């Protein structure tokens, strides 16, 4: 049976001053019911544009090809009306900043029940009862009273939980969470991650988590896709990709993070940033887009475009030299740029 969401060879081109340029280029992944899939990458890697494509919210003049099937329906060719019925009802989104996602001068209750009444046709009282239940699910204290309160009366973490409640109001099957915890403190983040995990277990909710935080990814995602400059670098089961990464870019992202396991090392290791910065749209290098920043690049990397190929069960890698050790140890290549 086909998974709830199947994206195949997705290509999204955005208009720039120099014509159409690909923001997403040949991306494929699946999300099954009850599954959490993570997309990782730096800003500008095409993560958010992927989510916008699934919602049919691309900027004017954008062009798509490939396929994105949700529950057997092709999203890329749906009309405006059909997309509008799908958005919120079947596919919902939570974005990074809860203060912009919520309307500041509408009571929380109105914002949570709006979707229920529009999409599910619930009566006012039925919607209200369900809203109370939903706010309790996302652990808002005293949900009855919260319905009459305004977003500004809640803390950042509570606002994000309310935004999740709004997204879940019409009982969607797929939740797109774009950096859902980036603006939050770690303790609040822990609560949101636990909530997402509970929702997928209890409701079979499928979640696509988009984040640059590999710690967040490691905590909740079943499978992980790492994107660079609009292309898939590597994807596979969480443990494989994060514990034994095969792509030098994934390795680089992990090495740029502080290492908690090195806490007992008195001489703390300096962080190892990836040299250079990601290419901008329309300025993507030929061959492998990562090759100018890669410590393992060979001459072919500058000319031949790497395609993702299976290297283990469910593990795709777009790096033909495949230079990393298999034990997950961080290699220090000779002559690596400082």
């Amino acid at each position, binding site marked *: 049976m086909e998974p709830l969401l199947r994206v195949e060879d997705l290509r999204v081109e955005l208009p720039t001053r120099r014509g159409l340029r690909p923001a997403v280029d040949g991306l494929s992944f699946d999300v099954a019911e009850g599954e959490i899939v993570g997309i990782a990458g730096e800003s500008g890697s095409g993560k958010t544009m992927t989510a916008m494509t699934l919602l049919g919210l691309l900027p004017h003049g954008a062009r798509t090809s490939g396929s994105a099937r949700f529950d057997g329906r092709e999203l890329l060719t749906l009309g405006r009306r059909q997309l509008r019925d799908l958005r919120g009802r079947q596919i919902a989104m939570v974005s990074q900043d809860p203060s912009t996602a919520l309307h500041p001068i509408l009571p929380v209750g109105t914002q949570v029940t709006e979707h229920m009444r529009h999409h599910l046709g619930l009566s006012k009282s039925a919607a209200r009862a369900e809203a109370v239940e939903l706010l309790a699910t996302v652990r808002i204290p005293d949900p009855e009273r919260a319905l009459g309160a305004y977003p500004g009366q809640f803390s950042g*973490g509570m606002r994000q939980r309310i935004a999740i409640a709004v997204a879940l109001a019409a009982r969607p099957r797929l939740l797109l969470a774009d950096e859902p915890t980036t603006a939050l403190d770690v*303790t609040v983040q822990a609560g949101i*991650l*636990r909530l997402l995990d509970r929702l997928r277990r209890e409701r079979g909710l499928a979640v696509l988590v988009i984040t640059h935080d590999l710690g967040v*990814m*490691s905590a909740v995602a079943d499978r992980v896709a790492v994107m660079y400059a609009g292309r898939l670098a590597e994807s596979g089961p969480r443990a494989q990709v994060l514990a034994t990464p095969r792509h030098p870019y994934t390795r680089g992202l992990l090495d740029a993070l502080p290492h908690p396991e090195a806490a007992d090392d008195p001489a*703390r290791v*300096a962080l190892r*940033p*990836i040299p250079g910065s990601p290419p901008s749209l329309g300025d993507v290098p030929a061959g492998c887009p990562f090759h100018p920043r890669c410590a393992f690049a060979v001459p072919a990397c500058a000319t031949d475009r790497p395609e993702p190929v299976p290297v283990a069960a469910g593990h795709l890698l777009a790096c033909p030299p495949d230079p990393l050790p298999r034990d997950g140890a961080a290699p220090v290549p000779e002559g690596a740029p400082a």
Partner: protein
Amino acid sequence: MTGATPVPAAEPTLLELTGVAVEYGRRGARVRAVDGVDLTVAAGEVVGLVGESGCGKSSLGRAAVGLEPLAAGSARFLGEPVTTIGRGARPGRLRRLQMVFQDPYSSLNPRRTVGDLVADGVTLGGGSRAEGRTRAAALLERVGLPASATGAYPHEFSGGQLQRIAIARTLAADPLCFVADEPISALDASAQATVANLLSGLVRDSGIGLLLVSHDLSVVRQVADRVAVMYLGRVVEVGTTEQVWSRPQHPYTQALVAAIPRPDGGGVLPADLPGDVPDPADPPSGCRFHPRCPIVEDSCRTTDPRPETVAGRQVACVVRAAPAARADA
């Protein structure tokens, strides 16, 4: 942990905060954002100040350099009081106490060249414009940018580069000590690593003292020698980075450390700390953390804990300070 950690007390204390309190007015009422904090920064030392948003860490950082008036207590730099900035010029003796702000997009004037921006610190210290220009070029190279950047404008740089320019601008005043308020949280992951390395390198090489304010514990862990953890206006634990990170004692520090997800592919959900930070205008009685505390006892509701030595660091927790708990730890 014996002998493995540096002894910061050997270096002279640059910045000394004693019983510092900061208040803000809110609808006629006074809210104490910082309530009685003691903290020191020595030469060549990075002190990390961590806590959730609203805990008062930024207010404390700003009060330390004289950007907020003190409601109580004292802030001293090289033994002299840090006067609050007003309409008049900041006293010359405070020139070597500086600050780096969170957002380089708003802390750098977009209509001035990078060279002029960096040279300010030199000219304000009595240097000529020519000296300023030469020194600006040298400082930009020190933070990893080409000397040719002096002629460019801020919009020509990325966020990480701008923050390095802001740091060069601070260094131009030849500081002995500076406060950096979330200097890397507005940056991309890889740029974060670059700026964090730059800050710790500067401190180690030139013996500057740094008070690093951040909500990101993992970055502070990587850079700081000592860490102070704040909760609702109070410091609840201070110790060496290794002590606080590997063997946290205060239940709030333990919750913070446990909430950090590890990027190891293990699929372990971080531990949740139930509840929200209470309103600082109406802090809980006794220990301010008691309504959320997993090891709360009756006395916590009434006794306001003062910092005591527990397992070699300062902890403000009556349960942890009790002899029975010490035996367990």
